[in-house]
């Protein structure tokens, strides 16, 4: 049993939107539907950081808890999906979701009768894997093909990670150790990197 998760490394995310267009590309998501988007805080100011956000595939998903028609289900991989044939497009999940993941398209096949649409972790939906019907309603099913979500696979700086939570955290742990090791190797303490600080670069001196 895997528990599929996304993780976005804010030290690496540069808001290049590669994840956003990768999602559009593989799922042919119509104009106006943003299964994934990059959120930037302190835009243009010291401390600016960006994060790529989509459905987080919560283990105890609030959307599923509130859904009046119970169209959500969790796959064995821990991916939260929904059935558009059951969904009534009420938008209650949108209230419940802490990340603003549910989308309500207004036209195109994705939008047939106002159904909710969201990130599927590139795992399609309840229809036959990689059938044209599945693609039309839910986009691609890369998981069934042994691939991972395109957004993470195509991330320019490898900021966005996706996969089994254990794997993701292992990669991130290694990265953090690398960062610390690099700093410690120079004989300085890992410090908060500040924008435009007046401090001298003391501590980065050659040993």
């Amino acid at each position, binding site marked *: 049993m895997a528990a599929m998760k996304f993780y976005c490394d804010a030290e*690496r995310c540069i808001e290049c939107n590669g994840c956003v*267009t990768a999602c559009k590309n593989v799922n042919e998501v119509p104009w106006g539907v943003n299964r994934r988007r990059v959120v930037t805080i302190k835009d243009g100011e010291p401390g600016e950081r960006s994060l790529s956000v989509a459905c987080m595939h919560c283990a105890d998903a609030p959307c599923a808890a509130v859904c009046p028609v119970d169209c959500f*289900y969790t796959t064995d991989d821990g991916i939260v999906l929904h059935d558009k044939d059951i969904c009534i497009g009420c938008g209650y999940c949108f209230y419940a979701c802490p990340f603003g993941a549910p989308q309500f398209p207004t036209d195109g096949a994705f939008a047939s009768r106002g159904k909710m649409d969201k990130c599927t972790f590139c795992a399609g939906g309840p229809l036959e894997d990689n059938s044209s019907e599945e693609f039309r309603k839910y986009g691609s099913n890369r998981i069934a093909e042994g*691939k*991972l979500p395109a957004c993470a696979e195509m991330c320019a700086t490898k900021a966005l990670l996706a996969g089994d939570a254990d794997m993701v955290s292992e990669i991130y742990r290694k990265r953090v150790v690398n*960062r610390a090791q690099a700093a410690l190797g120079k004989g300085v303490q890992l410090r908060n990197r500040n*924008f435009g600080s007046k401090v001298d670069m003391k501590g980065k001196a050659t040993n």
Partner: protein
Amino acid sequence: MKLTKTSDQITQNRNNHSAASAGGGLAMSRRGFLRNSGLMAGGAALATTLTPAMMKKARASASAEAGGSTNEVKTICTHCSVGCGILAEVQNGVWTGQEPAFDHPFNHGGHCAKGAAVREHGHGERRLKYPTKLVNGKWTKISWDQAINEVGDKILQSREQSGPDSVYWLGSAKFNNEQSYLFRKLAAVWGTNNVDHQARICHSTTVAGVANTWGYGAMTNSYNDIHNSKAILMIGANPAEAHPVALQHIFKGKEENNAPLIVIDPRFTRTAAHADHFLRIRPGTDVPVVWGMLWHIFENGWEDKEFIRQRVYGMEEVKKEVAKWTPDEVERVAGVGEAEVRAAARAMADNRPGTFIWCMGGTQHTIGNNNTRAYCTFQLALGNMGVSGGGTNIFRGHDNVQGATDFCILSHSLPGYYGLSGGAWKHWAGVWDLDVEWLKGRFDSASYEQSKGKDVTAMHTKGIPVSRWIDGVLEDKENIAQKDNIKTMIFWGHAPNSQTRGKEMKEAFEKLDTLVIIDPYPTASAIMHDRTDGVYLLPACTQFETYGSVTASNRSLQWRDKVIEPLFESLPDHTIMYKLAKKLGLDGQLCKNIEVKNDEPVIEDITREFNSGMWTIGYSGQSPERMKKQQQNWGNFDYTSLKAEGGPCDGEYYGLPWPCWGTPEMGHPGTPNLYDGSKAVADGGLTFRARFGVERDGVNLLAENFHSKGSSIKDGYPEFTDKLLKKLGWWKDLTADEKAAAEGKNWKTDMSGGIQRVAIKHGCAPFGNAKARTVVWTFPDPVPIHREPLYTSRRDLVEKYPTYEDRKSFYRLPTRYGSIQAKDYSKDYPIILTSGRLVEYEGGGDETRSNPWLAELQQDMFVEIHPRDANNAGVKDGEDVWVEGAEGAKIKVKAMVTRRVAGGVAFMPFHFAGHFEGKDLRSKYPQGSDPIVLGEACNTAMTYGYDSVTQMQETKASLCRITKA
């Protein structure tokens, strides 16, 4: 809230779901498979390598319902110069999928918004679909035959009436190498030097400045080599938006080496957001801040004295100039305090080797060539050159702007930077197997300029640069150093909104006899004027619909395979070139030794032809076969060193980065880092080029006590000629055939490659072993100095740092400097205006603004203004404003109120077009070919100002006024 129970139906489907995938060709259950492949995270590539098996298996299972098999095609992204690998999946001729190329050495599968969206090219809904011409203001469909016939007749008519220089051949950095070469050759056989492309307005000052410092004008190391950097300094560069995948490599250096990341820019860019250290300078003060850093370095003795002694000429003269840039003066001029400047200098001094990165923020100034040489000097002072992890990493713009520059679609040189001298023409006439006298007859035989007191004919004088084509049309012809004005413009893959002075450009468009636009998209050339006739719009296909080689910023050549057949009626550029040449009666000369099939010159033949002539920069060893082999095995190359270990390309560097010396048979591996003496030349090592003589005023210009590994000559030496070989007693090492070819020749002109081969056999660089020079005595400012922009708000600095005097004839045109700066515009136009890129769009933006996946992300043209300036103008965030340039052109854009810019500075992206001075021109596009997003072109409001060596336009420092619309 559970109003219904979990339905059985879904559970059932879920079961089916597993069953279906098992039945889809997988030998094991899906989950079992995922477990076995390690279920890598998408970001795993950096931490470890992804198993390619994962991707292969996946394809096997994907064909559950697909009709027909899926082909995987390897190609390269067509947007920026990083050169990201792309795996395209094609089914029945349709581009159905795009997969990350995890094993590609440049991007490891990563893409920015543009790269992740290239498959849209396979749809191409907004593309030009067939040839059209403007008849009484209406776009009318015509056939290719009619188009070529009519265009050819118009061109010939211009020639007849106004001479060959009246036709302007504006080429493109979007051509592949073969097309670039063919295009330059076409202009040559047509008989004009009025040929140019985007490099003029992006890195021309880099190429000129850098080549004049140490020999070659290109990025010295590679994106990947930044993994080895101990410090990273960027000035006027915003790779987070312009080269996002470069950040993959920059972050690796930053994180794993604890390399301080220093960003110097007027704007707090998305790159600056990740910097350890940010220096906000006033636009146009690069020289002061670089000299300011050097001031601290010299003051503290942090320079690399031994490196300077061995390999640098003229540092003493630089010191005299640097001494003027005391911390107080730097703060007064550039606006950065002593602590910041010193800290940046200290960080670079303490962490060596460090890399120095720059882009358009440094190049697009009247003193662009001074800026780029100051950067080089800084790296020389620290001994950061010729070393892995160091270097001047100049990020080029378009995917093949490096290649198009190397093939010199430039008004001042023939391919390979051979120049326009008699010797250069003789060399290329030899390669082309053409008679020089015939070529001479193609040119205007009159002289309009003098050099050293002697008349020089048009064949040997620099043509008009693209930045000034409008002056070539509008200027009184008495003032132009050619027979007549430009009468016909051929815009071949070039958006006009990347050039300044929009109002005058509109006028120039209207004054032309004929306007020919050859492009996959209409571009603003089709609509920004009020012409009703005499405009031809011919659909070229993109690089995904043809094949050939492309040179990334790091000098690596990569082979692209054709993904799909040309869409609609579009044709590959080289086919259109051939058709046009045939109409002009030049096909015999253009393709004398190139096979042509159905009007399409065979790409591999073109590659082989340029291989046989490009000795100067080592484009001679990259045969089509070698490039294709590397493409098939790109996974064998190391992510950091770019060297293949084992496999069919064992020992080669990825892309055979030029110089790849000698003939293909010689098997040179390419040169990963320029001027690196720690390797033998045969293994990619190099010295500084002996390009500027052997001594000056009694001072030795050759290297002292320095040589590359394994060199038979243990000191500096000049470039190799037949005479030098004889003097050294190495002539006997040539074969009989080589001897016959090399007699009277040098390393650049010996068509056998023998001189290069023998020099390298003895461990020597064919181009000599010299010092880099920090004093370029042939330039207007031998030691780089600061000069205020033409439109400056700092009137108090004009007297001390004045611009140049006006020039009467410079690239055939009168060029103004002092007469503009003399007038104070800062009262009426108080805000400094600068420009730059957005990640979603590329260049003029027609291609990317037509891609819905990208267009959705940036739907409005905007100007960034500081809250203080916004309040002073009574403007709120999101409101429409007029931005009026100092020459009076006004554009209407949205205000983005942000502290990203400093007070008194405004920024605009330059990718938009389709609105002009407040008017929406959507109705003027050919039906169905209007880009999804239109907007004002920033450059409509940008002003006059050109670099003193290359005519680069000054788009990074001008003045404007912002008012509420």
